[in-house]
């Protein structure tokens, strides 16, 4: 719960968080080491200095850490834990649905754990989707199109084998597809950050919700165009959020474009924890206004309190069928507990 200066309580559903283990013991090779090093560089560069972590803690943090950072020190009411396996880089996976569910089982009222699959696994991917639905009753999945899988160095959402998986998701009621577009490697003549596969998949699967993380950046213009055409495309703000601190004018330009093209009902807050912690992000976001000259270029769009409340929680609550009033009452009856340290 985020409490504003005038005492208003804002429901916060953090749409993009991780519970990873990137410790040296779990790294399979140099790629695993370089992957977490890259995340750590994001962390050190875009966090305010007082929120920097030691590298060891960043590589692997505990169940107590995530609970405290999100719900005790941080304002989150609930968090969606995304699964990212990276099996070519990490022995037991960068994160996994089993490990995340085990962590979340201490406070199931606060976590939504999403699954993941790799369409290139063919029949096995389909079996795995069944397993995740039956065992964990997942409502969503995280797709990482730049993941390596043997000789393959990436895939597209409109690959035929991916479509088979999405057909099954639709059939099983796994409706929220979070898409993370990382740089693809091959073929080299293709734009590495291309987002047009989202357009195809969203058109062909209108009953699924496509939540594109880091709002398609660095292809924001293409993404905005697609999201304007497709009613089932949403923008996750993970990675865009920390710019509120480091480059506030730039953050204003991004938000103005998103509000103008995509609209206030389709933007979802995400801290990308543990790259960043939600405490400072939410606080700075709540106190932020788009500079007037930037707003004027986009029809006067502005981040009003009402719109911020939607972005911070209400929009994601709709996608995950959460009754916010009931959830507030439930959480109010069981306030956060600080683990004995």
């Amino acid at each position: 719960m985020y409490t504003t200066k005038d005492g208003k309580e804002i429901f916060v559903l953090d749409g993009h968080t991780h519970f990873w283990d990137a410790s040296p013991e779990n790294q399979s090779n140099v790629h695993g080491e370089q992957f977490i090093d890259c995340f750590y560089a994001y962390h050190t560069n875009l966090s305010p200095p007082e929120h920097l972590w030691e590298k060891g803690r960043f590589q692997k943090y505990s169940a107590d850490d995530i609970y405290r950072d999100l719900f005790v020190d941080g304002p989150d009411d609930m968090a969606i834990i995304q699964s990212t396996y990276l099996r070519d880089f990490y022995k037991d996976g960068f994160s996994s649905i089993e490990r995340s569910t085990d962590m979340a089982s201490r406070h199931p009222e606060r976590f939504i754990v999403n699954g993941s699959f790799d369409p290139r696994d063919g029949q096995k991917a389909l079996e795995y989707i069944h397993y995740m639905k039956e065992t964990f009753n997942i409502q969503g999945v995280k797709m990482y199109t730049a993941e390596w899988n043997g000789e393959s160095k990436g895939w597209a959402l409109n690959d035929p084998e991916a479509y088979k998986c999405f057909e099954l998701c639709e059939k099983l009621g796994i409706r929220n597809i979070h898409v993370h577009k990382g740089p693809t490697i091959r073929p080299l003549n293709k734009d590495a950050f291309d987002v047009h596969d989202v357009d195809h998949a969203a058109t062909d699967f209108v009953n699924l919700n496509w939540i594109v993380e880091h709002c398609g950046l660095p292809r924001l213009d293409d993404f905005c165009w697609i999201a304007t055409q497709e009613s089932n495309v949403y923008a996750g703000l993970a990675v865009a959020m920390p710019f509120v601190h480091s480059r506030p004018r730039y953050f204003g330009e991004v938000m103005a474009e998103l509000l103008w093209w995509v609209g206030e009902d389709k933007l979802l807050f995400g801290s990308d924890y543990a790259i960043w912690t939600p405490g400072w992000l939410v606080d700075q976001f709540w106190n932020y206004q788009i500079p007037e000259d930037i707003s004027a270029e986009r029809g006067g769009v502005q981040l009003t309190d009402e719109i911020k409340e939607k972005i911070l929680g209400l929009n994601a609550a709709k996608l995950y069928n959460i009754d916010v009033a009931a959830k507030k009452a439930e959480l109010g009856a069981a306030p956060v507990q600080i683990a004995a340290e």
Partner: protein
Amino acid sequence: MFLEFQKTELEADVWDCLEQVTDPELDEPVTDMGFVERIAVFPDRKRVEVDFRLPTYWCSPNFAFLMAFDIRIAVGRMPWVEQVQVTLNDHCFADKVNAGVNSDRPFSEVFAAYCDGDDLHAVRMKFLEKAFVRRQETLLLALEAWGYSAQDIVDMTLGTLDGIAFQGEEERKQKPRYRALLLAQGLAGLPADPAFVTWDGARLTTAGLRDYLAKLRGVRINMEFNGALCRGLQSTRYKEVRIGADGPTLIDFIQNRVPPRQDRATR
């Protein structure tokens, strides 16, 4: 002593020459971005070695390929150079990039294997267009802020633009770069030609100027995102860089990696 002096001079020439090589995604010189880590000149063998490193292990390999080849081509054009070796360090595709760029095979052939037989021309043109847009937007915004009307801007000739003395650092930097691209693409040439046209060569209109600027802004927002991340990530990565056993090189000085003298003495 003379040889040492000559070597440093030649290294400085190589450095200047590398200023023409840009990161295609950012339209910033690889030298400004701090990507170039080592320049070694061997005057007796007319040989130059250039090592570079990108902000992360995961930077897009097609950008890495483009930059590696552009470095080889730019240095190879220097009149006294006969051999060039380019080395990309700490990158997920480094082995393939290094083998390709130093193989003496033409650019297109090396790429074909990774591009389903296609070449990189389309990607190159796309990046060139982005560079054009970014350079042009800088100038247009500066002119607007200075009080030039839409009509003034639309009617402005290359000759008039040439005569304008911009004040801001960014505009001063981008003006010659914009002009060079305008000429290279055949979009303008004579003083009477319009100074501002679209990438497709169309005239701007007063009625369409706001929409056109909004489009340019969209392109810049994307480039700035990558630029901000790259600079940030790069600054972290380069903290690991240590001065070599032979003492600081020219690049260490240019990149401000050399600690003040008394600081070094007290270590």
